């Protein structure tokens, strides 16, 4: 049983966990911004009429969705040096997370745009708006509201996925737990502590999603 559970050791390692937590937060934040950019670009390509842009975007999205992040991470980690890019593990990790989440975000944005009722688009077409005006004035403002909650869901997934970067020795939260587990043979202390930290992030983001849901729910039709 866990009769030897040592809170003292956890306290001793707290600065390490703190650093790991901070690293996890900022590398997730950067990766999420990167993923948004990748997602918007992919979605824009995917909404084109011609297959020239659509086909590569679709292929990319399918390839990412049908393979595990860990394999993608190793692909970049072991593969990039072969192409002459010797990058720090942290950069490889952020790249992998951005490229992976970007594919999912592209689908979220696309679903948001497609969720706008056809009649809305017809009404704006009938009033003589151009494609850009329609997107800017009618479709995107409504799609924005629909996409915020799933985007926050994707942010939660991304934070959890970032744990895999510990496997290529990025000094983030899970890595801190691994260090405690292996240095002092205290896996319970190490992994339960980081689990608690991840839950902190999870409930934080979840609360944010709830807030945004309520805020967005009232922003459109004030009744």
């Amino acid at each position, binding site marked *: 049983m866990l009769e030897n559970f040592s809170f003292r050791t956890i306290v001793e390692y707290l600065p390490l966990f703190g650093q790991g937590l901070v690293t996890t937060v900022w590398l997730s934040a950067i990766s999420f911004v990167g993923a948004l950019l990748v997602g918007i670009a992919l979605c824009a390509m995917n909404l084109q009429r011609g297959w020239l842009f659509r086909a590569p975007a679709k292929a990319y999205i399918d*390839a990412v969705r049908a393979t*595990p*992040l*860990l*394999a993608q991470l190793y*692909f970049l980690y072991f593969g990039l040096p072969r192409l002459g890019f010797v990058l720090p593990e942290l950069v490889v990790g952020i790249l992998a997370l951005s490229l992976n989440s970007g594919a999912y975000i592209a689908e979220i944005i696309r679903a948001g745009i497609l969720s706008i009722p056809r009649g809305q688009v017809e009404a704006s077409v009938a009033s003589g708006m151009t494609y850009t005006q329609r997107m800017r004035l009618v479709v995107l403002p409504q799609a924005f509201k629909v996409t915020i909650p799933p985007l926050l869901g994707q942010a939660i997934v991304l934070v959890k996925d970032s744990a895999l970067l510990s496997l290529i020795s990025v000094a983030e939260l899970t890595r801190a737990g691994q260090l405690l*587990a292996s240095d002092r043979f205290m*896996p319970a202390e190490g992994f339960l502590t980081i689990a608690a930290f*991840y839950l902190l992030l999870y409930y934080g983001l979840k609360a944010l999603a709830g807030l945004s849901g309520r805020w967005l729910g009232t922003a459109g039709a004030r009744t």
Partner: protein
Amino acid sequence: MMWQQFVSLAGSYPLALRGLGMTVVLSLISLVLGTLLGFGLGILRTGGSRLLSSVIGAWVDLIRGTPFLVQIFLIFFILPEFGIELDAFTAGVIALTNLAACFICEIVAAGIRSVPSGQVEAALASGLSRWQRMRQVVLPQAMRIVLPPLVGQYVLLIKDSSVVSAIGLTDLTRVGWLVVQRVPNGLLVFFLVGVGYFIVCYPLIMLARRLERRMGAAHGEVQL
């Protein structure tokens, strides 16, 4: 150089097949167990007991709120402290089953809640028992909502099984990791690993999409 790599890779062929087999077996066992457990939990979650429902809800939140890698480490390294010795495979099955059950529980609960209360009332009025109501009236209607995300969940499960390689189980991802130590061509090795997963996952993704489209047929698509 290139030729040597190919020969070396070809030599890893049996290993790769074993890895793929391991990934499939691990996923399949967890998928079946997770589905059964998930449906049970989902029905309990929407059943009468408030307490039971919130206990399940809290557990689901704990699992959804932590990385799967951390869950595997917890199971693999901490259960032995309670006197339960596990090999990597069993630890993987437990972790994956638990993960799948939690996600499927929420999917099933959402499906059950989507069935209009009038349906339950009609079933009540015609004298069906609690189990009959669930079996004959609620679940068949809930399945329409449940099926597409359920298949999507299976894809996630197969992909998540790759994380079990972190505790040394020789699945497809682990095979890639082993091979790349000998054949230093990460691009090629993990491209092939990706192909392996793609072959397993892509048909399921297509199935999920098709189910989704069939459900959403009423929704007009924006084309203009």
